[in-house]
């Protein structure tokens, strides 16, 4: 089956994505939603980094022998694709920033309503 042929490795990221999506949408507790969101973003980071992997004698994209001796004979097949790593550095930072802002909002929500369950907050809003 072609799904298994191309790499069941992609299934990991799909399962993580599903877990993250379920947490972000299905849970009532605000912090659990945030954790689900974080798992969701991490799954995407995993996916991108897996794009850059190369079989065979390939290692991380830092040229060997960088200290001192002049570097020669750089073969593209002996280093991972560096571009997904670069992109994911940005994505990680964006994820951290979003989690930070969401935590600040959650703190204010707790100070305002005294609870972190979304249904209870909605009840308090409806009754106020």
């Amino acid at each position, binding site marked *: 089956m072609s799904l298994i042929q191309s790499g069941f490795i992609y299934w990991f990221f799909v399962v993580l994505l599903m877990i993250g999506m379920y947490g*972000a949408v299905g849970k009532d507790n605000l912090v659990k939603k945030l954790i689900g969101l974080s798992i969701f973003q991490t799954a*995407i980071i995993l996916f991108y980094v897996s794009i850059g992997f190369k079989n065979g004698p390939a290692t991380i994209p830092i040229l060997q022998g960088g200290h001192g001796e002049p570097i020669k004979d750089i073969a593209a097949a002996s280093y991972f694709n560096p*571009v997904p790593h670069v992109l994911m550095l940005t994505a990680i930072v964006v994820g951290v920033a979003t989690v930070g802002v969401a935590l600040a909002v959650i703190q204010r929500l707790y100070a305002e309503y005294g609870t972190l369950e979304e249904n209870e907050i909605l009840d308090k809003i409806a009754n106020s």
Partner: protein
Amino acid sequence: MSDQLIILAIIYPLFVGVVTSLMPCRERLLAIWGMVHLALANLLSLGLLVQTLTEHQVTYHLSGWAPPLGIELRATVFSGLISWLISAVALVGFIGGRDTWKDQVGERLPHFLALFFLLVAAFQGLCLSNDAFNLYVMLEISSLATYGLIAFGGGRAYLATFHYIVMGTIGASFYLIGVGYLYIKTGTLNISDLAQILAGVPWTEAYILALGFLIIGLLLKMAVFPLHLWLPNAYTYAPDATSILVAPLSTKLAVFLMFRVMFDIFGGVIDDNIPSWSLFMVLLASFGILAGTSLSLAQRDLKKIFACLIVAEAGYMLGGLWLHDPRGNVGALFHLVNDAVATLVLFLVVVAVQESVGGRNLGHLSGLFRKSPLTAAALIVVAFNLIGVPPFAGFFSKATLITGAIASGRLEFVVALLLASLGNLVIFFRILERAYFPSEEPFEEKWTRSKRGDVLGALALCIGLFLIVLGLQSNTIMDLFIRPVVPL
């Protein structure tokens, strides 16, 4: 110098924003500082617009590296127009929101304005960048700045912001998944390169799903029904100075991004390859228009009425983009410009009404005609525009959309558009009736009326009259700016 205009349009607001966070909290100083810099940003964008008209397309290689090695910026005539629109709306929004600073912002003004400028810079970047991943970063900066600006409102804004964070991040992440699927199949992130590759390959599942995820992510950002749940609360409970900037631009830029995905990346031939999607999208858009209008009818808070109208307007543009006929696409893009200006007027009116009559519920509006006739006139003008009365721009955009829909055979879209006009008529009739006739219920008069309401009303009226200009010149504008970028 002129070839640096495109980068300065993005960098200038960014730099000003970063420096603004270091400034002392003096209201007058910051007001003048902001206005001067936004005026200069306007000049830069205007220069860029003129440049795109003369050179037809402006590209810029960042860091000196040619794409796809480096990141590229690209401006077409339409992006030049949107870039100027962003600066102009920011300037007007800044002036309009200034009166609310004392009550709603207070001591945190430098940081608030820093986020304001960063948001403008991110919008410019969204408009001008030609790299798919760079667009994601711009999307996230605009989202983060918006979260901060909206949450600052306090009270119910906190829950609204949290919902916005969850839905907005899921949307941006779907966009990122789409870009990832495209990258793994093509190996490039540059939009022009992607277009070239996609033009020559058969669209297998990965490509179709990439398009699907890009679209769903952008639908979340555009707040199309049923993914609109975050928008009404977020825009209503935000501070007024925020919603004047965010409401006219944020969803419209997501529409522009969808246009770029559909036409710049996938070449505008989606209908030929996957015809069923167009069917579904136009149907969804029609439902969205009706849902947004009905949501609007059920509200009593003026700001929330206008926020729900944004959901309906997103439906117009989504449907227009997915129609087969190029007239539908042209109509959608013209409606983008028209709606940005109209939403600006609507939210200016909200601030003006609050200054004039002290509240923004329908019940507070009584006597608005007497107290601030200019604000009421602005309300009438924008009502005509939204209902679609000639010579306002709203009529021409609706007419183009309807022509395109009939030519494509999508009558449900025509019906939705006409029903929406009727719905808008009812909504604004209710508002204006309340404003005209003094109501019997007494409410506290201990609040004093401020003259600033008149000034804001006058400003809103001027922008509203600009809508007439937009309408009368609609054909010229469409020929100059829109038809060149839409494939026939």
